[in-house]
Structure formats: structure tokens, C-alpha cells
């Protein structure tokens, strides 16, 4: 008997996605674990400014964040694992944001949504706006825009899902924060005089060592006038 001719068969994709497409479940537990984690993200129900309106729109039926498994907005930090900082964080509000972050259980993730949450945005030189929430808490995904469209928020969620899928819960380098050093808790800044103290948390963020723009007076590649 001749053995069957296999030469016309296409190369088999042995990655978990490929085998799943072929109708065969050939996978590792870790992959299934991360896949289910990434498709069940529970955002915290809170919003700061105009960006929050887009976030609400994303949660509505038209854009439907439920397609990505993140529709369970929880009004308690104890029950959620994703903080969407959607909008302007004023200095008066910043201690509360850090406090809420501290209250979330691990694993916890942060999306900084909009120019304001990233850097202060249109209010950067104002006396009352924090110049980016990443000065006090670690941010996983930065989502620029003013405001970002709901599609962009969905894309940032997919980006976060990719990050979650890459995390390792076993082995020498554990990157899943649930199995890390314990719950990440950062010092809550204080309102002192006219400003926040400290102005940033050096554990999380430091100003770039040398900012060439400040030395030259203009962004790199441009002439000062």
C-alpha cells in the first residue's frame, strides 16, 4: 500500500489561533487563561470631563464595548480591574484618582484617555490641571485625541487585550501583576499651598533627564525665530 500523498496539504498553523480555526483545540492552559482574562475586563464606572461622554458613547449600543467583553462597568474600585481616566484631572481631583487606583485589586490596568489625561491637554499651562495622570500612577495604554472617538477607545482596549495576552503568570519572569509583588499602592499626593506635593512620584515618572527642547528653546529640527 502506498502511503497517502500529503504533498498538497497546506502547512498547518500550530499556533493556538490557527488550531482553533481548524477546529482543533491544541493549546496551553496559560493561553486560555490569558485569553479569558483579556476578554473579561471590568472597567471602573467613572468619568472626568468631555472624554467621559465618548466613553459613555462607546458603552452604548452603537459602538457596543460588550463585543470586546468590557461592558461590565462597576461603580466600585473593589470590583473592577480597568481604570479609564477619561478626561481632565484637576489638581484637586488627583489625590482621589490615586486613592481609587490604590483601592483596586490586582491585576489592574490604566488607560489614559484623551490629551488631558496624558499631559494636561488644552489646559496644560493652567494653574489647576494636573499635567498627566502618569505622574502618579502607571499607565498601560495612552490614547491621544481630544476627545478620542469611540473607535479609538475600542482600539485602546484591544491594545490592552494584546498586552494582557502577552503576560506571563508562570516561570522566572512573571509579568502578570496578579502574581507579582502584591497590590501596587502609590502615595497619595497632598494639596499643599497652591500646588500638589510631591509634584510627581519619582517611582512612576521622572522628567526626561535632558530635554533638548528646553535647552535650545525649540523642538529638535526646527530653528528658533
Amino acid at each position, binding site marked *: 500500500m502506498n502511503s497517502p500523498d500529503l504533498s498538497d496539504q497546506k502547512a498547518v498553523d500550530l499556533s493556538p489561533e490557527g488550531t482553533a480555526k481548524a477546529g482543533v483545540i491544541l493549546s496551553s492552559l496559560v493561553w486560555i487563561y490569558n485569553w479569558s482574562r483579556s476578554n473579561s475586563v471590568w472597567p471602573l464606572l467613572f468619568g472626568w470631563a468631555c472624554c467621559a461622554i465618548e466613553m459613555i458613547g462607546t458603552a452604548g449600543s452603537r459602538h457596543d464595548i460588550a463585543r470586546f467583553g468590557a461592558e461590565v462597568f462597576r461603580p466600585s474600585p473593589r470590583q473592577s480591574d480597568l481604570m479609564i481616566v477619561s478626561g481632565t484631572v484637576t489638581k484637586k481631583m488627583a489625590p482621589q484618582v490615586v486613592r481609587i487606583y490604590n483601592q483596586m485589586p490586582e491585576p489592574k490596568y490604566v488607560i489614559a484617555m484623551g490629551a488631558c489625561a496624558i499631559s494636561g491637554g488644552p489646559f496644560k*499651562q493652567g*494653574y489647576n490641571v494636573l499635567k498627566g495622570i502618569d505622574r502618579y500612577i502607571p499607565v498601560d495604554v495612552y490614547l491621544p485625541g481630544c476627545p478620542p472617538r469611540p473607535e479609538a477607545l475600542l482600539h485602546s482596549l484591544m491594545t490592552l487585550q494584546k498586552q494582557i495576552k502577552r503576560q506571563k503568570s508562570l516561570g522566572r519572569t512573571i509579568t502578570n501583576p496578579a502574581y507579582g509583588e502584591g497590590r501596587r499602592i502609590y502615595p497619595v499626593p497632598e494639596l499643599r499651598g497652591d500646588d500638589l506635593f510631591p509634584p*510627581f512620584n519619582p517611582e512612576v515618572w521622572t522628567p526626561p533627564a535632558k530635554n533638548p527642547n*528646553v535647552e535650545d*528653546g*525649540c523642538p529638535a529640527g526646527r530653528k528658533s525665530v
Partner: protein
Amino acid sequence: MAAIDHKGVIRQFPELEWEASSGSLILSPEKVDEVVSWLKEDPAYRLDYLSCVSGVDYLEKEVKTRVRNEAGKMVFKTSLSPEKMEVVYHFYSMEKKTGPFILKQRVLSRENPVVTSLTPHYGGAELMEREVYDLFGIRFTGHPDLRRILMWEGFQHYPMRKDYVPPNDYEYEPTPHGDVLERARERREELEGQSP
């Protein structure tokens, strides 16, 4: 909405000043209670709705005006406009469907400006006057609960004043220029001085 004629109130209170350039009635803080309650009750005015309270800060500055001199020629005259603070009130009459009517309380002091609160007459003034107090430091006598409203307790200055300098938190400015560049440099030197 139909505009409101100011002649009636000037007839009733001849000592009041009508500032034509801004179309507003200037009040000194002592006259407030009397004039405001009259404007609220008088059948010709019936100003029953206070829509807006704002603060304004004027630094001392030179102003140039065109005047006619003795020879009959137009010349520029420089004079010093004194520092002052104003609280501007916008009124409407819902009953007569007229408005707005603008009323200003003016104090010639930036050190310790004190005006009279309208909260006893219009409940809606309470939060707006607190905001003016918070951002301009203008005190309202007769206000039931004069506290900061937007800034936190312990904030030291009044941020909407013209001479307010915000704290320097310019650690990272990606595209600085002008004042921002100066302040970013200052801040950088400050931070470098702190670190060993």
C-alpha cells in the same frame, strides 16, 4: 428680549451713576440693598431673575483719551486709571420678558475688596458669589456661607487676578516657547539643584 430703560431707576435714585460705555448701573456697596430691592419690586422693572455674577480685576494702568485742547485741536491725554475691582450682575425679568439689566458694584481697592452680597435678595447668587470670592478674593458682606468653592481650602491666592503667578510645575514641556520656555528653564535648574 426687549432692552430695559435705565431712566426710571436714575429718576428714583438721582445720585447713582450710569456708565454709558458699558451700559451698566454703578453702585457703591452701601446702596445695594435699597436699590436692588426696589428694582426687584418696582412694577416697571420686576427684575426677578439674576442670571450671572462675574468678577473683574483691573490693575492700575495708563489710558489714552482723545480730548480737545484750548486751541480746539484733538490731542491725546494720558491719565492713570486707578486699580479697582468690580462685581457684575446680569438681571432679567421673567415676568415682563425684558433684559438684560447690568449692575456693577465697584471698589477702588485690590488689597481688601468688600462688596455687599445679593444672596438675601436672590438665592441663586449664593454659589456664584462664592465663585467670585474663590477666584478674585472679593468678600461679600451678608453672604451666609462664604467659602472657597472650586479651589481647595488652603489655596493661598486668588487665581483669576491679573497678577497671579501659578506655581511652577513645568518639569516637562515638549514644545516650549516664550514664557513657558523661561519657566521650564527655571524649573529645570530648580530640580537639578535638588538632586545630588
